[in-house]
């Protein structure tokens, strides 16, 4: 009961607040431009006195849209073409796209497209200038002709979408020699270093110019227009006209030149997203921003941030692990009593273990939204198996002669459990807890993908912005944390080890057995 109350308090502390004073949750896709726009939304809202929670880089279109529909997030930057093709699975003439999506989204989902921001970010299929020269490439039709000689590197988002690779293949008849999946942040480097010959860039990317790449013209008009706009979830659209009014200030204020410049500052010059967003807001907003001015996101020193993230990481792991112990140990004991059910039940837990963490986290979104709760549930599920398996095995294999003697001498089942079976199984159970803890510390880095924070946050951000230093600032502390947790649990394990098994005693035992032998003799 106490553990439950404490857990509840932790959950509250982690940001589970009552519906009425819930902050506006601003999310983005995992690439630079989306980060910048979301940060601009967030700072603008904060300047208007609206409380904001940020979920930068939360996921690709499917995850963000699912989260928006269920009000797990409130607003994120989206592109009209994506809404039309990837979500509505519809087509429309270029001029019709915005009208079509805003109408249909309102009718079907109660989701609001604010007026477009003022720039289009379409797919820009790019090649190196040498490649363009050698194969005489200017249009996508030219590319289709040369495609059997070329290796393509496409992002998962592009490969998976109707307005991506599939449509491109259908309309132009592309037949690449190979198609490699690439992380968004790495595609320009992959292209520049001759790892691949073709990539899916964005027309606003700051990196297009840097690597002197050639973008190929969409001569068959395959890509719909991708006008950027704020996509507002049903709850926010209904309840917060103040927030809508604030966000609408950005409509038509960001042209493609400005966006490209902002992207370049983040992607090429490695400037801080918050700073770039703040500068951009100063430039584009002529309406008064309110008394507070544009709030800057106080990030503090990097060390403080990592410390806070590590603490949150540990808290996530601690709660998930504690909850897993509370469930898995009794479950292991229960299974030991009904052995027929044990192997199938443990097998099911084992199957859970084989689900890739990122997929398991994605499954959690429709059930629990985004944030701390789905992350805790996923981590908890991961930790169950090693603990339940260890408890079951440990208790089942506990010295059968000792257990039988205790039974034949008139101990109750509870006494045997507490005095004999659990103590004898303790080292095995503890080993299971240790395994679970290390797995959970690792898996918790992925919790950042669904907005639960922790050391995965700089990793996700670094992956999106191709910033190795940022990635390492999360990855190294996470690795250190895993070692620390394992080390601390090793100490706990040693303390829990029954006295008769401790190594010092073991030596004494060997010695004792020899020295007392003669007393046995007549």
């Amino acid at each position, binding site marked *: 009961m106490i553990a439950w109350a404490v857990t509840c308090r932790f959950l509250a502390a982690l940001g589970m607040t009552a519906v009425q004073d819930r902050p506006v949750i601003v999310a983005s896709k995992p690439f630079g431009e989306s980060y910048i726009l979301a940060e601009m939304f967030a700072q603008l809202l904060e300047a208007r006195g609206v409380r904001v929670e940020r979920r930068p880089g939360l996921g690709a279109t499917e995850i963000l849209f699912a989260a928006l529909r269920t009000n797990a997030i409130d607003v994120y930057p989206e592109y009209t073409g994506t809404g039309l093709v990837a979500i509505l699975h519809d087509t429309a003439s270029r001029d019709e796209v915005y009208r079509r999506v805003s109408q249909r989204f309102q009718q079907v989902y109660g989701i609001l497209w604010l007026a477009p921001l003022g720039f289009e970010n379409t797919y820009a299929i790019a090649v190196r200038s040498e490649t363009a020269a050698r194969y005489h490439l200017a249009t996508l039709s030219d590319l289709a002709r040369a495609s059997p000689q070329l290796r393509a590197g496409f992002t998962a988002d592009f490969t998976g979408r109707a307005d991506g690779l599939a449509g491109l293949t259908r309309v132009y008849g592309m037949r690449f020699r190979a198609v490699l999946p690439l992380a968004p942040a790495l595609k320009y480097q992959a292209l520049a270093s001759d790892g691949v010959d073709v990539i899916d860039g964005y027309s606003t990317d700051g990196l297009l110019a840097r690597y002197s790449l050639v973008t190929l013209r969409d001569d068959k008009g395959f890509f719909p227009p991708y006008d950027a706009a704020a996509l507002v979830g049903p709850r926010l659209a209904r309840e917060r006209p103040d927030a809508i009014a604030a966000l609408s200030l950005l409509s038509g204020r960001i042209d493609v030149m400005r966006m490209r410049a902002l992207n370049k500052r983040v992607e090429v010059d490695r400037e801080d997203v918050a700073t770039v967003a703040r500068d951009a807001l100063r430039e584009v907003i002529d309406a008064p921003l309110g008394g507070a001015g544009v709030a800057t996101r106080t990030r503090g020193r990097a060390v403080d941030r990592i410390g806070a993230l590590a603490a949150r990481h540990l808290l996530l792991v601690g709660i998930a692990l504690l909850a897993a112990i509370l469930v898995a140990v009794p479950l292991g004991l229960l299974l030991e009593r009904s052995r027929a059910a044990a192997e199938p039940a443990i097998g099911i837990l084992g199957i859970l273990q084989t689900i890739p963490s990122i997929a398991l986290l994605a499954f959690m979104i429709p059930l629990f939204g985004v944030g701390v709760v789905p992350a805790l549930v996923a981590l908890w599920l991961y930790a169950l198996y090693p603990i339940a398996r260890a408890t079951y095995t440990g208790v089942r294999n506990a010295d059968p002669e000792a257990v039988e*003697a205790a039974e034949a001498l008139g101990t109750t089942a509870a006494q045997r459990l507490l005095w004999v079976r659990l103590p004898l199984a303790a080292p095995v159970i503890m080993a299971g807890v240790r395994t679970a803890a290390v797995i959970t510390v690792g898996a918790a880095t992925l919790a950042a993908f669904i907005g639960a924070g922790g050391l995965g946050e700089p990793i996700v951000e670094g992956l999106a912005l191709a910033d190795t230093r940022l990635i390492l600032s999360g990855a190294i502390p996470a690795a250190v944390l895993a070692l620390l947790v394992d080390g601390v649990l090793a100490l706990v394990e040693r303390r829990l080890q029954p006295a008769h098994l401790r190594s010092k005693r073991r030596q004494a035992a060997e010695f004792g057995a020899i020295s007392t032998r003669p007393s*046995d003799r007549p």
Partner: protein
Amino acid sequence: MIPLSARNVTHRFGATTALADVSLDVPAGAAVAMVGESGSGKTTLLRCFNRMIEPDSGDLFVGDGTVRSQDPIVLRRRLGYVQQHGGLLPHWTAAENVGLVLRAMRRPDRDAVSATMALVGLPIETFGSRFPRQLSGGERQRVALARALAGNPGALLLDEPFGALDAISRADLHDAFDRVRKRLGVTTLLVTHDLSEAAHLATVIVVMRAGHVEQRGTIADLRDAPATPYVRELVARALAKLEALEGSSA
């Protein structure tokens, strides 16, 4: 002290008949040994008395009542039990092991533990805080015997308690056990495959074979009037072994 008795007990494990209509009496304070090969049913019958096995048919009596009428946990606390490998709790000290039954009954009694350990020749000051793996095989069986006695049981059930020991520890422990039993006068039912051990420790010997009683009587009865060729051969083999020992020492 309480008497033990079995009436027409039959038990099967699947297709195997472990006990076929077996009857047996152990008067209060007496010591009876069941002798036979493994699979003869002797251990099965022993375990029917403390309800570790529920027989298919027949009645067993501990004291005045049938075992079926008694709560198994209460019943087992009245019957001390020692098995071949002792079954000591490896994570408990010798003294803690000896105190198991008292602790299970929620009346821990340090003096009773100390007295019982002294009785089996293991002074608590020296041996009380040792763990089983710090003890020799013979010492472990003494602890097991003390554990069976500490709750002051009405009868003892011993399942090959000396079976895993070397000859010297074994002879030593026989003497110790005989002393203790005679002093306490506790009813004893012993299972062993060794006829000479049975003759040494019990007054009445029950020879068992394939789930039935071949013959019961004193060692003299078995020697002078063997009921079956099997008993004759069993006695002859034990005597031959004894003679060989005497021959080699002469």
